[in-house]
């Protein structure tokens, strides 16, 4: 039976799709058969981040409307064994997703996969609510910035009242993923710290992804940033995946890196 995890945030542009791509790749790298679903109907982008945009034939809405079967719509990732992508429809609107349709697709996927990652659209409208409704766990992607933190709190409220588990009187397991973290700016008190955000949102911390040039580079190339093992962001995502699987891994990249004498002399980054 698969575990359904939603990657959500309320606010747009905080790194939901980047995180969905990285985490699903990380789970597959560790041998768990994983499918990542783009719920952003009308504004599909996961395919670009995963580098499979030219292989999309059928999409999520086609499967719901029975215009194609799952096998035809699922795209097998070329880099990572055991990873599949279900792209969103680019042509329809979010109303195309129905509870019954989504549930049927998830049930069919659950027979075959260990993890189902739902990449939520921004906002708190139907599309976002559909993405989180069936989830057992939620990764709330947050930037250390006021509007993102407020929207994350809003989406936590929705998880606690409008998800299927909440309707059954149970609760969705929540994880905080803090992205675009800049330790230097935190050190000079220009940015909310991990501790500040944890205190306000009061949910367990899954990981902190430092602001990194590697993220743009990865999306330019269509390769999830977790595959860039040299980069801090890639390593931080690997740690987060390990924690998601229950391992106890210490948080890294929270402190500003001190420049060495030579580095300073040579003007290195």
């Amino acid at each position: 039976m698969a575990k359904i995890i939603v990657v959500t945030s309320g606010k747009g542009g905080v790194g939901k799709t980047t995180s969905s791509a990285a985490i699903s790749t990380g789970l597959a790298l560790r041998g768990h058969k994983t499918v990542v679903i783009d719920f952003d109907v009308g504004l599909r982008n996961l395919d670009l981040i995963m580098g499979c945009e030219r292989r999309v034939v059928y999409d999520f809405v086609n499967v719901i409307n029975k215009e194609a079967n799952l096998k035809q719509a699922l795209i097998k990732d070329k880099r990572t064994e055991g990873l599949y992508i279900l792209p969103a429809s680019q042509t329809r609107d979010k109303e195309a997703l129905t509870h019954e349709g989504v549930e049927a697709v998830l049930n069919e996927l659950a027979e075959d996969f260990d993890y189902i990652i739902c990449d939520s659209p921004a906002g708190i409208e139907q599309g976002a609510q559909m993405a989180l409704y069936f989830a057992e766990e939620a990764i709330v992607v947050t930037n250390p910035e006021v509007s993102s933190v407020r929207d994350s709190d809003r989406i936590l409220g929705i998880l606690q009242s409008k998800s299927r588990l909440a309707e059954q009187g149970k609760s969705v397991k929540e994880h905080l993923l803090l992205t675009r973290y800049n330790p230097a700016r935190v050190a000079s008190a220009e940015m909310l710290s991990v501790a500040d955000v944890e205190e306000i949102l009061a949910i367990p911390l899954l990981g902190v992804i430092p602001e990194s040039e590697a993220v743009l580079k990865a999306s330019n190339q269509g390769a999830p940033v977790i595959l860039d093992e040299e980069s801090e962001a890639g390593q931080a995502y690997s740690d987060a995946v390990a924690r998601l699987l229950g391992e106890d891994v210490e948080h890294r990249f929270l402190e500003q890196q001190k420049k060495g004498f030579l580095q300073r002399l040579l003007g290195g980054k």
Partner: protein
Amino acid sequence: MGILDYLLKKNKPASSASVAKERLQIIVAHERSTRGQPDYLPLMQQEILEVIRKYVDIEQDQVSVQLDTADDCSVLELNITLPERK
């Protein structure tokens, strides 16, 4: 002044991160308190205010409507601060 202030770290404005944290704590606490309330509550509050205004001159913030839910019992609390009689 100048140097002394600097050394004593007086008149130093609060860091922007701490301002952000404080503002967030207030707005998040406020929004959590209204979470789960029925959608009609703000409108009802507005209408109650207008009825009272017909008779007494009061401001928006002098009326507070609070809905508390415990188990299967909900209590609607209406608090009106009447102005002093002149």
